[in-house]
């Protein structure tokens, strides 16, 4: 096992990149946490980790399914499959959540962070209830969420693809399980780090918090993921039965 070979370094960087994609994804997803569950803040009413990891793991399933049936698939195809799965998962979550916010809780969708929705141009501030941080999932949050989950799914697909390249020649049929579990570990680490950075809630790309926290979170995730990449590649050395 030569750790300093060019291809190995590229693979470590790719794992670092995929961790960074997952970290970035978390910032795009409109996470409202407990306040959103009571329709007192914009976003989906659950935690960052649940949403990012939930959508990312669906992405992992779709990308690994694609890879299992087309082992000669290109890395872009595997990433696209992951992105598609994750985006569908989060979009359906937001659609179902939106139906409940609109017809169950009966709140108008509005964001307190921006005056006008950057996509539709609709005025927001007049619809925000007093004492709340906005309610529901406005258009910009929905779009931002779909983009974010696609990034996360693509990141998950990329790690899986890189790891399969190392593990499948060594442990053949068992490789999928090991690569999948390792990807899951990297996923959880990289979805919790940014959730500490954003402090639990973020509305999406239009939130002022986005610009403030993205650089330091991305830096942290990149370093930590590259460390995970080195670990992952060293593990392969121990798989010679």
């Amino acid at each position, binding site marked *: 096992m030569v750790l300093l070979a060019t291809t190995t370094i590229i693979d470590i960087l790719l794992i670092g990149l995929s961790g960074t994609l997952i970290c970035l994804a978390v910032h795009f997803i409109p996470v409202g*946490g407990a306040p959103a569950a009571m329709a007192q803040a914009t976003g989906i009413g659950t935690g960052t980790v649940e949403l990012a990891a939930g959508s990312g793991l669906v992405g992992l399933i779709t990308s690994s399914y694609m890879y299992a049936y087309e082992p000669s698939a290109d890395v872009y195809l595997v990433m696209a499959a992951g992105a598609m799965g994750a985006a569908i998962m989060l979009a359906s979550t937001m659609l179902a959540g939106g139906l409940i916010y609109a017809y169950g809780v009966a709140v108008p969708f509005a964001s307190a962070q921006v005056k006008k929705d950057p996509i539709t141009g609709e005025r927001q501030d007049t619809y925000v209830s007093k004492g709340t941080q906005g309610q529901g999932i406005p258009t910009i949050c929905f779009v931002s969420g779909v983009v974010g989950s696609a990034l996360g799914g693509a990141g998950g697909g990329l790690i899986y693809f890189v790891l399969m390249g190392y593990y499948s020649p060594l442990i053949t049929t*068992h490789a999928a399980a090991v690569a999948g579990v390792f990807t899951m*570990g990297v996923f959880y680490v990289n979805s919790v*780090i940014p959730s*500490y950075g954003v*402090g*639990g809630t973020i509305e999406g790309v239009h939130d002022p918090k986005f610009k403030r926290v993205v650089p330091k979170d991305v830096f942290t995730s990149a370093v*930590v993921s590259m460390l995970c990449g080195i*670990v992952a590649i060293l593990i392969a050395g121990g798989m*010679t039965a």
Partner: protein
Amino acid sequence: MSDIKEISPAQLMLFGIIGGLVGIYLTPIFPPYTSILGAIGAICAVIWGAEAVRRVAKYGLGTGVPSIGQIAMGMGIIAAMFGLAIVKVLTKDPRGIYAGPILALITASIIGFIIGWFAQNVIKMKIPVMIRCMTEIAASGALIIIGFSAAVAGNYDFVGSFIPLVFDNGVILAVFWVGAVAMLHPFNACLGPDEKQKRLLYLAGSTGAITMALMGIAAIMTLGKMGAVTLLVGIILWLIFYKKFWDEVYNDAASVLGTGLIPKTEA
């Protein structure tokens, strides 16, 4: 809170590390009969981890307690796989396998330290115990993963036993998730102004024991009859710990109940 004697973090750390490692190391002695010890070792690690979660989550993470349990298992699983697999790279000696769990523990501590350092100094979370607790949480996460997996696989050989008996059939996902819940649930359930360490530790014991029972079910599939013993002992331990937790809840609630009715104001 000053009048309540608490077990110090260092004592619990020793309890978790020694209990966890002894349990894991004794697992392969008389297979499959000693497989149960892996799960008991993991319960020690759960109790340690739950207390570490308590110390750090007291400061308010902003993301809820579950996030820290999940990152613990994320770090733990990476470190556990690395520690157990890397021994074959370092030495060709078959006795090298004994170094696996300790290497996993050290790796987890390093990963936890790095993530804790970044959380403290780059993300700037301003939690004084962050680095220490993140290190402890990662280390206990690795012990929990190895302990419960060893209870299912019968030993801690990564390629020979873990991959076919724990990874391939998906039991690792149960280890990952149920282990995470075992670690994060005690503080998540007990937090609040009247939170006490003793109550939390008993609850941690009971969540660890119920995880052991679930691993027993998985072990019936992999190790046969011995799994049933793990399941049974897990249920018995769960009942014992849960009763202790129940008593603690009643004890602590008594001081609230005993305050009497709100005095009637004179009209």
